[in-house]
C-alpha cells in the first residue's frame, strides 16, 4: 500500500510543471474610467510581423476597448510606436526573462517589468498586466508615466 502511494505521488510530481508561459505573452492594457485618448492610426511593436489591433468603442476618438500589447520573447524589452496624425509616441517596456526547463518543456516567465520610456501624454494613462498563458499570475500594474 505504501509503495502504491509512493508511486502515485511520483506520478503526480512528474505531472507538475513550474509557472510560466508556453507561448508568446502580451500585456493587457486596460483603461480605468473613461479616458480621453487621441485616435491612433495604428500601433506597431518593433520587430513585430503585423500591427497591433486597436478597437475604439464609440468609433470616434476618446474611448478604446481594452487591448493587448504583445511582448517580444526574443529580447529584454519591447518598443511600441503609437501613430497618430503628426505625431509618433513611443513606449518601451523592459523586463527580465526567465526560462524554465521542465518535464513540460520550455516555459518563459517575467519579472521586473517596467516602463523605461513613454512619450504618450500624461493623460493617456493606462495600467498593464501580463497575461497569456499565465493564468492566475497577474502582475503588478505598470503605469504609463513620464
Amino acid at each position, binding site marked *: 500500500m505504501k509503495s502504491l502511494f509512493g508511486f502515485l505521488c511520483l*506520478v503526480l510530481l*512528474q505531472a507538475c510543471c513550474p509557472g510560466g*508561459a*508556453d*507561448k*508568446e505573452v502580451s500585456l493587457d492594457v486596460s483603461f480605468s474610467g473613461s479616458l480621453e485618448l487621441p485616435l491612433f492610426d495604428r500601433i506597431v*511593436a518593433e*520587430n*513585430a*510581423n*503585423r500591427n*497591433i489591433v486597436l478597437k475604439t468603442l464609440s468609433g470616434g476618438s476618446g474611448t478604446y476597448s481594452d487591448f493587448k500589447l*504583445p511582448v*517580444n*520573447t*526574443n529580447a529584454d524589452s519591447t518598443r511600441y510606436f503609437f501613430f497618430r496624425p503628426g505625431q509618433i509616441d513611443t513606449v518601451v517596456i523592459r523586463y527580465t526573462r526567465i*526560462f524554465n*526547463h*521542465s*518535464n*513540460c*518543456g*520550455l*516555459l*518563459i516567465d517575467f519579472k521586473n517589468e517596467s516602463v523605461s520610456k513613454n512619450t504618450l501624454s500624461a493623460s493617456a494613462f493606462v495600467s498593464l498586466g501580463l497575461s497569456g498563458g499565465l493564468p492566475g499570475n497577474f502582475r503588478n500594474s505598470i503605469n504609463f508615466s513620464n
Partner: protein
Amino acid sequence: MKLFFVRAVIIIFATCWLKCGLAQTDTSSRYALVGIDLSKTLYANTFMKAPGWVLEIQGRTGRKNGPGLFLGAGAYQVSKYLEVRNIDYSSEGQYVKFGIEYSEFFSIASLSNCAYLFGVFANVANTTNSGFFVIPGDYFQDYRQAFRNEYVQLGVQISNQLLFPIHKHFQVGVQLAGGYLINHEKERARSSYYAPGLGVTGRYRLASSTSVSLHYLIPTK
C-alpha cells in the same frame, strides 16, 4: 494515468489469455529465428515532422517449449516537433536488447510452428538529441533555444509475442510489450524524447508498445 492503467490491464490480460489458451506441441527440437521489426518506423513517422527510420534486427534461439535467448540491435534517426512541449528536435542513436524468452510452439488448424514467446529484455541505448526549445510567437518570431544532449538510456521490457507462419520458414510476429525506462535525460524535457528500442517516447517511465515483425525460422534438427 488512465491510459497507463488501460495499457497495464491489456498487457496483463493478454499475457494470461495467451498463456492459458494455447496447447503445447513438439517439445523435442530447438528453434532459431532471425527477424526485422517492421513497425517501429511506422510508429516513428506517425508523429514526426520529417520522415524518420528505425531499423531493428532480432535473433533468438532456444529449446521449443522451453527457455531461449534473445538478442536485438537497432539504429534510428527521427525528427520531431512536439507543439505541446515546445520542442523541435532530431534524435539518433543505436541500441541493443538482450534477454531470455520462454517459448510455446503450437499448431492452429493447418498452421504448424505457431509460437508464443514471453520474454524479459534489457535495453541499452546510446542516443543523441539535438534541436531547439521553442516559445512560439504570434506577433513576433518564435524564440528558439538550441540544445544538444547525449546519454546512455537504460530500460527493461516485458514482451509477449505471437508468431504465425506465412510462407515456409517465414513468420510474422505481433508483439505487445511493456517497457520501463530506468534512466532518462534528467534535466530538460525528458518526457519529450524518443525512447529508442522501446518504440515509445519517454512521457511515462512505464509504457506499452506494439510492434509487427517479420522472421525467418532457420531450419534446425
